[in-house]
């Protein structure tokens, strides 16, 4: 019985192949779009998640403020209001896990015949903790290296590749702005940062060495920025207050006067970035779902036409004993077959497009089992939902009226 009905539905669809295919196309495009959008959205979410965990957790960043004295505001970080002593004082606050004063910049680096321009970050050993950035071979420099401004360096993977190729950089001597530095260790792979920059294209040296030998800082003891890591995320707002108070007091900022530094909660920035990708991917999914809806309406439209065209057939079937549910099932089955078959093709199309997108644009896409299941579930539901009304219309026909239909 069931098999006979399936065979019949198949035949009915085969009788009007082009129309069946066109109806299916709506479903194919809808499901394809949903799968593609979900793959891209989930890929973006995953990428952001990776970036955030690579950045390090519970982070504040402190930037030197503007010099208000001249009356002309210059870019943040241009004035050197933050000092290493400030950083040390912040480290004493309860709830602060690690503090890393940083002097960032870029420099020309030479190894043998190889020449490479890369980011040079002067900081303390705490920087590696704050960024959760491990040394994968060799070793990190120590606080004593910072104190005595030793010419040592840690090298990121991209920089290492460009300077050393297949050679092991550990123990080799590179020249940064003419000064020789010994490579102590190689840093682990970090990937893209929030700004999209390749973080592995960098070299880390002790803060003091960077300031003296690389950048020739005008104000020794001051830094452009400080990264602060708290023990938990919950206490971040509290730390923000106590840190601001501490710095204003240390900088002798009067009540009502603007602070001479900027404090940013990086974690909340990252969270909102993650949130916005999540919202974006949901939006993409929602827009794609609209095309699924349109596909469903297409099915309903064609089923209505088909029911009208086959009125006489319905009459004949009723005359020889088809009950309402037999007719209902027959037309419902056709709608569901069309939508599920369309869904299957759409799934393949969507996965194909997603892989093509990944290959062409290097964006990460993730095709999850759940998105496949959702697509199938939605297709079957759409088939039943939009097929139901036409099928019911067929089933409710009056036998004699249907037989008289020309």
């Amino acid at each position, binding site marked *: *019985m069931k098999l*006979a009905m399936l065979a019949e539905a198949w*035949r009915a669809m085969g009788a009007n192949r082009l129309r069946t295919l066109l109806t299916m196309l709506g479903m194919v495009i809808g499901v394809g779009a949903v799968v593609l959008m979900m793959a891209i959205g989930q890929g973006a979410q995953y990428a952001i998640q990776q970036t955030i965990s690579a950045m390090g957790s519970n982070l504040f960043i402190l930037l030197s403020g503007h010099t208000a004295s001249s009356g002309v505001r210059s870019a943040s970080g241009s004035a050197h209001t933050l000092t290493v002593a400030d950083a040390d004082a912040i480290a004493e606050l309860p709830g602060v896990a690690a503090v890393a004063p940083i002097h960032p910049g870029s420099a020309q680096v030479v190894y043998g015949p190889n020449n490479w321009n890369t980011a040079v970050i002067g900081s303390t050993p705490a920087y590696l903790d704050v960024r959760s950035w491990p040394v994968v071979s060799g070793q990190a420099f120590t606080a004593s290296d910072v104190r005595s401004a030793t010419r040592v360096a840690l090298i990121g993977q991209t920089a290492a590749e460009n300077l050393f190729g297949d050679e092991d950089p550990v123990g080799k001597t590179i020249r940064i702005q003419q000064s020789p530095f010994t490579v102590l260790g190689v840093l682990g792979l970090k990937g893209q940062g929030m700004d999209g920059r390749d973080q592995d294209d960098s070299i880390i040296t002790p803060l003091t060495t960077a300031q003296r030998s690389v950048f020739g800082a005008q104000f020794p003891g001051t830094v452009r920025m400080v990264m602060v890591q708290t023990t938990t995320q919950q206490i971040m707002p509290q730390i923000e207050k106590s840190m601001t108070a501490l710095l204003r007091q240390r900088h002798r900022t009067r009540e009502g006067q603007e602070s001479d530094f900027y404090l940013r909660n990086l974690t909340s920035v990252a969270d909102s970035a993650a949130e916005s990708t999540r919202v974006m991917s949901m939006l993409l999914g929602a827009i794609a779902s609209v095309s699924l809806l349109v596909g469903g309406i297409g099915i309903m439209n064609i089923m209505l036409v088909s029911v009208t065209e086959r009125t006489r057939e319905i009459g*004949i079937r*009723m*005359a*020889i*004993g*088809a009950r309402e549910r037999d007719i209902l099932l027959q037309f419902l089955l056709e709608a569901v077959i069309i939508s599920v078959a369309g869904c299957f093709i759409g799934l393949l199309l969507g996965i194909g497009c997603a892989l093509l997108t990944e290959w062409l644009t290097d964006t990460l896409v993730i095709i999850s089992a759940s998105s496949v299941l959702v697509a199938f579930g939605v297709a079957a539901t759409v088939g039943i939902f939009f097929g139901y009304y036409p099928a019911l219309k067929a089933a409710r026909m009056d036998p004699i009226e249907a*037989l008289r239909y020309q």
Partner: protein
Amino acid sequence: MSTPVIRITGLGKSYQTAAGLFPALKAVEMSITAGEFVAVMGPSGSGKSTFMNILGCLDKATTGQYELDGRSVAELSRDELAILRNRTIGFVFQGFNLLQRMTLLENVALPLVYSGLDHAERQRRAAEMLHKVGLTDKADSLPSQISGGQQQRVAIARALVNRPRLLLADEPTGNLDSRTGDEIMALFDALNQEGITIVLVTHEPDIAQHAKRQVRFHDGHLVSDQLTPHEVAA
């Protein structure tokens, strides 16, 4: 005489038309007992098809009573009517009404699908019926590939496949030449011999001669009801 299969009292049917209600059948009284062979005659528009459609449970009367096997049809649900059409009544149309996309065998087997029989049993019984109407060799043809007479034989096979006790035929030979019509009528005679009750609409007196009883409609009234002369003689 045995109890009537069909008992009709005060049956009326009006159609809703643009010009108002049109009475196609008026106060028809009639009983048909098991094993009868009735020819329904009358001029065009006299209400014969209207009458047959009501007998076949395809349409409902506006007034009066129609009892089939002692049950009042008006009180049956749509599903119960479908089951009657499927098991108790076989209906043969003037225009054959075969499903064009299906083979002859599938057409004949279709009522059995709605009876819930399994595939093997359906095939067996449909093949048997096709054999009975002499079309075994055409089982896998489509309706469009055979003649009108053959199509009507397939339609009769379909009407009989579920072994109904009542066979209704509305001008079954109307679209056929007289020789083919005779073949169909021979089939009806044989079926009546087997005990199936037959009600058949026809314009042609020759065809009506096959019946044992002839009723005549005029303007929606049943105007005459008599035994066929050869039956009277017998």
